[in-house]
């Protein structure tokens, strides 16, 4: 085991090497932790000050067990923050540390430069600790059960939000609070009065009738004021409009913020891991490895990119695709000339010696996310070489290899990644049937919602909104509307 001083020297040295390759990262602070602390940090997604919640305890229990049974071991963890924090496991060998440090610098470079991370909060360490302190205070004030129950409810609705909101300006009017202004209805009715002589007024336009008319008109106006455009950020809508006490509103906003913070990491998982793996492997083999460490490194690296039968390893897929991109841009296998060439032999030996690979890689890491990355750079040759396939469950529920066709595989991959693989649910109307009920629509893409969970979530949603909530979706290709009144969830058509 290396000493702290030794590690410190390596941290400085590897940072220099990383910079010499053009990587550009925030200051990175390394902490040396025991495996218990590592598991704890992993359970908290890297933030030691997170709010108390049983699911972190559950995650810790799982990590602890699988560590004890030797099923896995966390080597590296890095937090997107400025300065970045990274954790090193104390009983690792020096060669592991070197690899992890190199890997970490590439991650931090990605955090700093990838467009999709641009809107993230770079003082997340502090922010999460603030959330922790606030929720602890609420627990003291309102009791554990109460606060925890509410947090659970919010978390179950965590993904009802617009993951792309930070990147686009949606054309939509601000959500207007529904205010009933008695004047408005009456004003509208004024215009509809029958013109008549004053003394006939009570008979031609009797007061009750006018009042009745005004009420109806008012209702119509309110109805029109309903949410003007389909809203994807349901959570944000609730945080702004749900009739809940202040502390609950705060918790809801905090949980929304945290989900937004983690979203880019989920959006770029394949690229980010591929990028870090690509760079640790280049730095290690080109600059950092001592002869005596070659075997250990090779062993560790190959475990990182190992493929489970039938599963996708983001490290391996990202690495392979980045290498493929580098090779294609080094050899000039792109552009109209390459596309047009149909001579297989020529394609086989195509090499324009452009040497644009590394430059292209840096461009890719700046601009793309996983969906775009795969959409643009996945090629039939790559799918063939990497032995990618799509699978489907047969009628007995056994997953079977379905196809090795490029189109099928690509479609499957993109579907898996779009909207982080989560259903798109939008708020269509916040004053449904003019009864202040929410009407949500699930954009059905061929896979129905998981039913039991959807029902639970509907119950939570209506408890937050304190009014009935509807969700339109499809089951077995027919339209279904779930309606929850806070206790019961009914299913209608």
């Amino acid at each position, binding site marked *: 085991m290396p000493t702290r001083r030794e590690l410190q020297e390596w941290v400085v040295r590897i940072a220099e090497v990383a910079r010499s390759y053009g990587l550009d990262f925030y200051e990175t602070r390394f902490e040396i932790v025991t495996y218990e602390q590592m598991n704890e940090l992993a359970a*908290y997604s890297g933030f030691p000050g997170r709010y108390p919640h049983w699911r972190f*305890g559950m995650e810790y229990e799982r990590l602890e067990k699988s560590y004890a049974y030797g099923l896995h071991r966390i080597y590296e963890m890095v937090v997107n923050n400025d300065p970045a924090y990274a954790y090193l496991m104390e009983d690792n060998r020096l060669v592991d540390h070197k690899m992890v440090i190199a890997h970490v610098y590439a991650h931090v470079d990605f955090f700093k430069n990838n467009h999709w991370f641009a809107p993230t909060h770079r003082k997340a360490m502090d922010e999460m600790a603030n959330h922790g302190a606030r929720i602890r205070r609420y627990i003291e004030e309102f009791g554990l059960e109460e606060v925890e129950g509410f947090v*659970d409810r919010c978390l179950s609705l965590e993904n009802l939000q617009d993951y792309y909101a930070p990147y686009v300006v949606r054309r939509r009017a601000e959500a207007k609070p529904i205010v009933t202004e008695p004047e408005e209805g009456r004003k509208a009715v004024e215009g509809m009065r029958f013109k008549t002589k004053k003394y006939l007024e009570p008979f031609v336009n009797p007061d009750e009738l006018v009042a009745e008319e005004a009420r109806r008109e008012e209702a119509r106006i309110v109805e029109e004021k309903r949410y003007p455009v389909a809203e994807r950020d349901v959570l944000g809508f609730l945080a702004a409009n749900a009739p809940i006490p202040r502390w609950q509103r705060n918790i809801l906003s905090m949980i929304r913020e945290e989900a937004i913070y983690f979203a880019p990491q989920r959006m770029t998982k394949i690229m980010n891991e591929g990028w870090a793996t690509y760079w640790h492997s280049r730095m290690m083999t080109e600059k950092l490895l001592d002869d005596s460490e070659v075997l250990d490194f090779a062993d560790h690296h190959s475990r990182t990119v190992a493929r489970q039968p039938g*599963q996708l390893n983001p490290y391996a897929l990202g690495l392979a695709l980045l290498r493929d991109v580098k090779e294609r841009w080094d050899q000039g296998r792109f552009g109209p000339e390459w596309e047009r060439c149909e001579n297989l032999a020529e394609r086989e030996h195509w090499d324009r010696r452009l040497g644009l690979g590394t430059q292209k890689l840096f461009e890719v890491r700046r601009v793309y996310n996983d969906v775009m990355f795969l959409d643009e750079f996945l090629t039939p040759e790559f799918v063939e070489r990497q*032995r990618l396939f799509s699978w489907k469950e047969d009628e007995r529920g056994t997953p079977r290899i379905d196809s090795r066709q490029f189109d099928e595989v690509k479609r499957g991959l993109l579907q*898996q990644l779009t909207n982080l693989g989560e259903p798109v649910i939008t708020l269509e109307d916040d004053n449904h049937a003019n009864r202040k009920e929410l009407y949500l629509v699930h954009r059905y893409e061929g896979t129905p*919602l998981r039913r039991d*969970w959807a029902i639970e979530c509907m119950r939570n949603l209506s408890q937050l909104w304190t009014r009935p909530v509807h969700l339109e979706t499809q089951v077995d290709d027919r339209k279904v509307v779930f309606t929850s009144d806070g206790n019961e969830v009914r299913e209608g058509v």
Partner: protein
Amino acid sequence: MWDDDDAIRNIQKDQARFRRIVRGLIKEDLRRYMSRGELLGRKGDRIVSIPVPQIDLPRFTLGSGKEGVGQGEGDPGDPLGQGQGEGTGGGEAGQAPGQHVVEVEITIEDLAAILGEALELPRIRPKGQDRLESRKVKFTGIHRVGPQSLRHFRRTYKQALKRTIASGMYDPNDPTIVPVREDFRYRSWKEAPQPRANAVAIYMMDVSGSMGDEQKELVRMTSFWLDAWLKAHYRGITSRYLTHDADAREVDEHTFFHSREAGGTMISSAYKLCAQMLEKEYPEGDWNVYTFHFSDGDNWSSDDTNEALEVARTKILPRCNQFAYGQVDSPYGSGQFLKDLVAALQDDRVAWAEIKGRDTVLDAIRAFLRKGR
């Protein structure tokens, strides 16, 4: 960033909270756990590990992954190997792919407490509790002689310091203290008597041809919980196992649950062996005796039934806290024995239950344990 080791780390609080929730869930779902015997893994003698499906928060999510993308060899149509992320099969619906299962370790005492709370069982009041049965070592005093491993460093140092100062050899500039033989002090112990009640549980099972695997599984599940309950009340309880068809014999635990014999059933044989065992090995008074007999109730002849019940009444009942009979439903059994037993043994110490299927294991356990004997 890290507090010192003494501080309770946040994660430990979260973990404790998670465990409390799990405990609550186990209690709520006890009937389901009881009807799924395979769920319970024994770890050593006093710890049970219970796999609970990860209690995920519900969220809007797409139904079970019916398709996806993978990597590896194989032709279209080949089934994927292990590790595709399917949840462990079997059990009820709602198995999402990739559902993790968390194993929660729980002590027998905790499990028994959950069982007790859920079934509202009275605690057992052991007989002879005030008898002094075992001795416990307690370190209470200081001796001048003893083994090095028990040397009391602080006392020894104090003694040496005193001696050095008293003899005027103490030099503040060079405060080296060298203890000599007289300075050494050792911890010493006393044996404290500890009240403890002895207990034995005798499990008897009919293994004749009519008792199938399902029947044995029911017995196994029932005995697991009985065992847990008794263990929680009697540390160091002894369990004995008898099997019988037309003939009875003592076996070890494994054989008890796994052997299968063919042939007829003579319940009297088991009761006789049990009576013999009690008489010889567990003299009256000292022991809290529990007997459990499981059968499908299809005895060979009414003569044998009479004989068995006679033995039970005269030789077993007087010696035991409780005599329990569980009748397992089987396609072959007539179930006559239970009727005879209930008619013949009118005694407070007799408990009986019909175990009709996995769902009724819980009721059987309640019937056996509700008297708090």
